[in-house]
């Protein structure tokens, strides 16, 4: 029988206002095994912990129950306290009487009763607790960054600067990401390429950074400190070691009518191409889907014109397997598809474009060489309408429930740039709210209105109707004037919502990192651990975690890097001792547990056993404690109950059930 101490926390009034803590002490003191019970203002405080330590010493406690906040908050705190007093830290159980009780109930009597029951369950569990010893695992001193945008580049640079090897895996032929597609950046209006390119070059040149472009993460196994990752390096069909980046191949390529992804499909590129001038690596790739050689077997022009002999049609996808200690996810975003927004005529008219398309149009390397013109007829637009919140803050399935955060600012930027470069153009922005919380952001927006004469109208566009003469009729509301507006426009720019990259779900599944309903990766704690995934060893960088502008992305990338560095700086990690264990006298050796183990932690041995006098050799399941993460899938698959989970044993969970139902 354990000697159990119960410690009930008031948490100021957080608990004590709704739960009669004295009553909880009184009731739990009567439970079998409980030899000590007390309450205190803040159990997590130094003084509170001292009370626990004293009681362990004085009453010779073998197990303790702390009735307090969620174990996700302070389980570690109390375990450490117990350890200080010489008690095995796994002899501590938490009854969550704050988040699961005082904070959600109003009636004191009811909440107190529930707190007592939760405490009883914890006491029942502690009664069956056994001291556990954590193991150790080694840390591989190398980081993987998934995504080569500004977030990934920044994280990689920071980690590399700290002296650790970093690999960047980028799906596209070049690093650079979304930022490389932008023309100017708010609120300073400096040129995006001008500030990004040096970073790209720095990353490429860094001796600790290794970049895999045109590559994807294929498989991830292992755990914090010891991930094993398969990276698929897709066949570029160009030998990177030979190519000089002269560009003759692209020029001579006869297949030229392929949508140019970098320019959002607004113009075409050849089948062998370098996505953009500053691309890193500056090596082309053959788009096998559109290449005549790959489609028909005939052509081979690029190979003929390549002086370096770098073209290799036979090149195959290559799988690279590498071990990492930490993984930074920086998979970024895309704009949502607008095919469901018929009212804005996006698919009907070439002159209804997204803001990202406008970025390309405004860019000197874009489809119009930087001239603002209508894609339908090449004419300069006289009236431009910007529509905000297209698909953002939307509660139906067409859009996203969240605010995309960056649209207000980039729209102000676009409006300002247009008014600056083409003063004859009328610019009208329809907005619901203008959100500018950021350093110099509101000033920037006010400049657009005050200095550049951009016409901001509070109201939303209801419909865009393409006219026979090629103009667009915009029907909108002006809520301040309480009027409906009908106006002609030559171009309509939609601030489409942004969403996490399509591949993020697949990647999150591989990483066992959790993801929210909008496909943003979940952070370990919304406020206190914003750059870590709940899955140990996985860090979040950039928009994959939530909408962000460039400075925020860079800041978060740095933060994620620091967290990764903190991990890589350790030589060893202690492993969770709550792992599965097989009872060799009960095990049938049937292999069902190995079938469901996600970590391949279970193997089988022919073992000599002595089963109450019967000596025989049996096939027995053996769990590798370094690999086992303690999910418990095997324990339920095991029909004989041979497989059990330390810290969450069958008998413990049953005891909790019993305590709750009694």
């Amino acid at each position, binding site marked *: 029988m354990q000697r159990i101490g119960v410690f009930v926390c008031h948490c100021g009034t957080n608990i004590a206002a709704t739960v009669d803590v004295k009553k909880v002490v009184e009731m739990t003191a*009567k*439970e*079998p095994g409980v030899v000590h019970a007390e309450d205190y203002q803040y159990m997590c405080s130094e003084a509170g912990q001292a009370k626990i330590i004293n009681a362990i010493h004085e009453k010779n406690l073998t197990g303790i129950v702390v009735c307090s906040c969620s174990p996700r908050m302070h389980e570690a705190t109390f375990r450490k306290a117990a350890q200080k007093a010489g008690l095995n830290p796994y002899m501590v159980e938490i009854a969550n009487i704050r988040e699961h009780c005082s904070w959600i109930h109003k009636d004191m009597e009811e909440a107190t009763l529930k707190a007592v029951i939760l405490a009883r369950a914890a006491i029942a569990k502690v009664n069956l607790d056994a001291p556990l010893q954590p193991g150790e695992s080694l840390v591989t001193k190398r980081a993987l960054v998934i995504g080569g945008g500004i977030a990934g580049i920044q994280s990689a640079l920071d980690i590399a600067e700290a002296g650790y090897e970093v690999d960047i895996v980028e799906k596209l032929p070049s690093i650079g990401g979304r930022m490389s597609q932008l023309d100017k950046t708010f609120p300073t209006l400096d040129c995006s390429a001008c500030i990004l390119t040096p970073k790209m070059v720095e990353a490429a040149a860094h001796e600790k950074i290794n970049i895999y472009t045109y590559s994807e993460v294929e498989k991830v196994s292992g755990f914090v400190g010891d991930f094993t990752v398969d990276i698929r390096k897709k066949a570029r069909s160009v030998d990177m070691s030979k190519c000089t980046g002269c560009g003759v191949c692209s020029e001579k390529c006869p297949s030229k009518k392929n949508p140019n992804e970098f320019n959002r499909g607004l113009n075409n590129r050849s089948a062998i191409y370098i996505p953009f001038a500053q691309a890193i690596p500056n090596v082309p790739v053959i788009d096998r889907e559109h290449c005549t050689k790959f489609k028909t077997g005939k052509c081979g022009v690029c190979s003929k014109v390549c002086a370096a002999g770098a073209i290799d049609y036979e090149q195959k996808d290559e799988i690279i397997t590498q071990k990492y200690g930490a993984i930074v996810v920086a998979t970024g975003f895309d704009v949502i598809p607008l095919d469901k927004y018929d009212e804005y005529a996006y698919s009907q008219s070439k002159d209804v474009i997204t803001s990202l398309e406008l970025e390309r149009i405004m860019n000197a390397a874009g489809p119009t060489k930087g001239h603002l013109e209508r894609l339908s007829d090449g004419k300069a637009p006289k009236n431009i309408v910007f529509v905000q919140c297209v698909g953002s803050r939307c509660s139906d399935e067409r859009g996203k429930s969240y605010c995309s955060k960056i649209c207000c600012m980039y729209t102000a930027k676009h409006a300002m740039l247009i008014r600056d470069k083409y003063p004859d153009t009328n610019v009208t922005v329809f907005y619901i709210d203008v959100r500018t919380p950021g350093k110099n952001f509101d000033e920037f927006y006010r400049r657009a209105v005050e200095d550049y004469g951009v016409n901001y109208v509070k109201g939303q566009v209801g419909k865009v109707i393409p006219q026979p003469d090629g103009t667009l009729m915009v029907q909108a509301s002006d809520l301040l004037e309480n009027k409906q507006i009908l106006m002609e426009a030559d171009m309509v720019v939609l601030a489409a919502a942004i969403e996490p990259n399509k591949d993020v779900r697949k990647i999150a599944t591989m990483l066992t990192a959790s993801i929210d309903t909008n496909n943003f990766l979940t952070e370990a704690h919304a406020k206190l651990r914003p750059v870590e995934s709940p899955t140990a060893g996985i860090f979040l960088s950039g928009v994959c975690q939530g909408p962000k502008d460039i400075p925020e992305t860079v800041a978060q990338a740095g933060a994620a890097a620091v967290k990764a560095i903190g991990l890589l700086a350790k030589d060893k990690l202690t492993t969770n001792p709550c792992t599965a264990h097989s009872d060799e006298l009960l095990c049938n050796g049937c292999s069902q547990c190995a079938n469901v183990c996600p970590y391949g932690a279970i193997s089988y041995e022919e073992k000599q056993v002595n089963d*109450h*006098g*019967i000596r025989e050799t049996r096939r027995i399941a053996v769990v590798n404690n370094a690999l086992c993460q303690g999910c418990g899938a095997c324990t339920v698959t095991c029909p004989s109950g041979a497989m059990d989970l330390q810290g969450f044993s069958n008998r413990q969970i049953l005891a909790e059930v*019993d305590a709750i*139902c*009694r």
Partner: protein
Amino acid sequence: MYKIEKENLEALFRKIAESQDLILPIKKAGQTNFGLWNEEEEADLDTLKTVKSGKDAFFPQSETLYTVVRDGKKLTVEPEALRNRPFVVFGMKACDVKGVAVLDKVFLADPVDTFYAARREHGTIVAMACHEPEESCFCKVFGTDAADPAADADTKGIADVAVWMVEGSLYWKALTGKGETLTEAVKELLTPSDDGQAKVDAEKEAIRSIVEKLPYTHLSLEGWDGNATDEKFGSSVWETLYKPCLACGTCTFVCPTCQCYDIKDYDTGHGVKRYRCWDSCMYSDFTMMAHGNNRTSQMQRFRQRFMHKLVYFPANNGGMYSCVGCGRCVEKCPSSLNIVKVIKAFEKHGGEK
């Protein structure tokens, strides 16, 4: 000798059930077992053998012995009340009655099992002759008369009333004081019968002549007695004999004489119920102790059961076997093993070492 027409049996049952519990063969979901009768239940006196014997009327499959009530750290023990209401077991066959005689030897010997004794004291047994014995029956081997539950010396005084079903009438004969009392209580439904004795005698003859024809009737028990321990225990016959045994408890649980039980605790959340329940010596956890089990192989467990029935029990009980030849194990063993095959196996091998 009294009689009652078959169609009036329902009224008889109702009458008995007015003042006490009535336990008789009840058909439920296609199977007939002894159970508490009420108007909704379907009494079935035609099935020769209930699946389980009637022993659970006196020795239920499980019964609470006492309850420990928990109040905080305080524990109070509340003993379970002994049976104090009268009840009637109707329709036990001669073999079942003999089974009760065997159980009496165990439970009424010192120290007396008070739970059992209370039930025996308050229970009245109405025993019924077997109209059409079957091929699995071999009660005669143990001196039991399927035609007359009072004919066997061992069973004297156990059956309180004997009844015979002849041509749609039930003939009723009180055998003991308890039987007389019951007869008195239901007298309004019984009619004295003048030719009853003659009819019953004819029925007995008919039954006995059938018993003579049954395949197992002439089974020899030669060599099986209380003195045979060494010879039988050490025999190599067991080594092959037990092989098909599944180690289930069917034979034990349908047996009228198996009396082993286990004592277990059940945690109700607010206390503990200590109860006993039938156990089977065929189970691997039978008499499990901290160090393990004293019989580690199925052969040993299998041997134990039959040695107990045919050797150890007679050794301790004046030669009385603890098998009554009801044949339930013959019918129900999933592996077609049974005590008859065991006896025959030794016969064939001449009990060699």
